[in-house]
C-alpha cells in the first residue's frame, strides 16, 4: 500500500546510501520491496518469469539512476512506476511475438467481455469457488482495466498516483475503474446465473 504512513524516512536514508555506493543499503531496499513489487506485477502480467524479469529490471534501473531520485514521490511509487513500464514492455513484446498468449485485448466502449472465453471443461467457472471466479474474471478483463484495478485494489493507490504511474488523465482512471468493475460484475453475474440454472436443472433431474 502506498500511503502517507509509509516509513519514507528510512527509505530516503537507504536511497541516499545506495547512491553513495552502499550495496548493503541497496540490498536492504531489495529486501524491503522485492516481494511486494513482484506480487503486484505478477497480478498484472500473470506470468512468473515475466514478473520476475520486470521486477529485477526495475531494481536494476533504479540502482542505475538512484542518484537522480529527488524524493518528489515515495521510493516505492518510483520503483513501481519503473516496474510497471518494464511489465508493459514485456507484455508488448509477448503480444508481438506470441499474439495468441494474451486473449485479453483492450475493449472498445461498446464491447463486452465474452464470459465463455474460458469455457473449456477444466476451466469452467462453475467449478470454481468465489475467489477463483473473481480471479478468472480478472483475467478476462482487458489489460487496461485490470491494470487500474490492481493499482487501486492491491496497491490501494489514489486516482492521482494511478494517473501519474500510468500516465493517463485522472478522468480516464476514474472511468476505467468504473468500467472494469462493471465488466467484472457482469461476468460474475453471468457465471452465477449459469451455475444456478445448472443447479436447478440438476435438482429437477433428481426430482
Amino acid at each position: 500500500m502506498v500511503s502517507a504512513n509509509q516509513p519514507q524516512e528510512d527509505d530516503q536514508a537507504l536511497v541516499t546510501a545506495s547512491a553513495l555506493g552502499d550495496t548493503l543499503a541497496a540490498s536492504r531496499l531489495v529486501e524491503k520491496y522485492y516481494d511486494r513489487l513482484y506480487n503486484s506485477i505478477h497480478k498484472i502480467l500473470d506470468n512468473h518469469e515475466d514478473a520476475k524479469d520486470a521486477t529485477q529490471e526495475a531494481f536494476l534501473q533504479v540502482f542505475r539512476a538512484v542518484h537522480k531520485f529527488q524524493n518528489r514521490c515515495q521510493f516505492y511509487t518510483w520503483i513501481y512506476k519503473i516496474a510497471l513500464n518494464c511489465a508493459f514492455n514485456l507484455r508488448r513484446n509477448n503480444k508481438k511475438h506470441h499474439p495468441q498468449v494474451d486473449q485479453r485485448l483492450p475493449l472498445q466502449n461498446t464491447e463486452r467481455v465474452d464470459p465463455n472465453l474460458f469455457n473449456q471443461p477444466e476451466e469452467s467457472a462453475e467449478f470454481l469457488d468465489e475467489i477463483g471466479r473473481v480471479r478468472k474474471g480478472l483475467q478476462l478483463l482487458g489489460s487496461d482495466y485490470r491494470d487500474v484495478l490492481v493499482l487501486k485494489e492491491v496497491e490501494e493507490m489514489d486516482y492521482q498516483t494511478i494517473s501519474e504511474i500510468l500516465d493517463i488523465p485522472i478522468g480516464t482512471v476514474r472511468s476505467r475503474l468504473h468500467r472494469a468493475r462493471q465488466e467484472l460484475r457482469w461476468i460474475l453475474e453471468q457465471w452465477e446465473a449459469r451455475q444456478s440454472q445448472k443447479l436447478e436443472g440438476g435438482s429437477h433431474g433428481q426430482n
Partner: protein
Amino acid sequence: MLSEERKLLISSYIDGEATPGESALVRQLLETSKSARDYFQGQLWIARRVRQTLHSDPPAKGFDKTDVLREIFSRPQVSPATSTTSYRRRPLWGAMALAAAIALWVGLSAIYPRHLEVGGTWKDQEIASVPTHKALLASGVESRVNRNPDPKMPSNPLPYADLAIAGSPRVNEPLNHSGNDLEQRLSKEVGSLAEGDPAPNHSGILAFPIGPSQTLKRVDLVLPNVFKAKGLDPDLLSDWELNGILRLDLPTYQENEATKRLIATLKAEGCSTYLDPLVEEKIRRNIPVGPVVIVVQGLDLTRVCRVVQGTTKTGNAKTPTNQPTSVFDEVIVGNLSARELEAIPGILAPNTLRPRPFRKANEPENLQKLSKSNSQFGAFATIASASALRIPGMVNSRRVGGETAFDSAKAPVVLNIVPLR
C-alpha cells in the same frame, strides 16, 4: 435509470475520491433514488470481492533474495535504452556492445597514436583512474615528507599529513600533464607557487583534488578501529590508530559560511591546517575547487564527534559553545556495530536506530535474517532521526544561519559514517 455521469460519481464516492460537494450529491442520490442505491450496492459488492480476492492471493512465489541480489548487482550496467530487452536476450547485446567498444578503441588508436606510449598505456593515466589509498601510500609519501618538512611544526601531529598532497595528480607529473584545464590555467595564474614549494601556512587540514568529479557531496567519518580494513598499510597506520580520522570528500569546496564554520570548529578543536598551496590559492581567490578531500587527523574520537555534531567545547565569540556549525544536510550512519555506535555518543542512540525487525521475527528463518540484518545492514539514521534525538548541529542548512551550504550544486551535503570492513 442512472446516467453514466452519476455512475462515475458513485464509483468515485466508493473509492473515496469524490469531493465534498460530489459526496453530498451522492448521499442525496442514495436517499432519493432506488436505482442509485442498487448501483451503489452493486459497485460496493464487486469492489469488496475484488479486494478480498487480490489480497487473499498468497505471494505468487517466494524467492531467495541472495540470488536476486546477486543477479541484480552482477549484471553489467546497460543503458536505459536497452531496458526493454528481456534478460534472456541480454548476452547478445553485451557481446555486440563489447565488439563495438573494441572497434571504437581500434579506430581511436589509429587516429590518435600519439596519446599512447609504447606499452599501450595512457600517458595521462591519472585522468582515467583515481589512485587508491594504497597506491598513494606507496607512491612517495616518505620522500614527500622528507622533501617538504614543516619547520614550524617539528612535532607534527599528522605524521603522514602529506599523504593527501602525495595523492594530488600534480605531484609526480608536470601541471600541464594533468589534463585539467582549470589546473593549467590556475598554475599560470598562481605562477609564483611552484610545484613542491612548502605550503606557507601549515596547520591541520589537507585539501587536494582527487580526480574525477563525484556526483554527490559525501563526508566520511572513518572510525579508527576499522580503518585497517580500508587496505592501508598497517605500519603506516600505527600512529593513526588512536586518532579519529575525519575525511571529507567534497566535489566542490567553496569558502562560504558553512565551510568557514566547519574549519572554525576544527581549529577550535585544536586541528592545525595543511593546505595544498594551489588549493589554498584557489580558495583564497574564491575559485571553486573540486573534488576536494579534507583529511583531519589528530583528533580523538570525542573531538571528532564534536566536529561532526557541529558544536565546540571551547567556544569563543565566533563559534560559541553548542552553536550549530555543521555543514551537513543529512547524516547517514550505516553498518556500525553496537560497539562503534557506542563509540560515538551523542550522535546516535543505538536503541532507537536498530534496523526494523522483520514482521514475524520469532520464526527461525526470520530470526536468522534478523541477525544477518543487524550485522550486515547496521543502522541508518537520517537527519530527522538526529533531530528527534535533539542532537545539536545535526540540522539541515536552513537552521544553520538560514544559508544553504554548497548551493552551487543543489545537492545535499551528506555525512556518511562508514566503517569499511
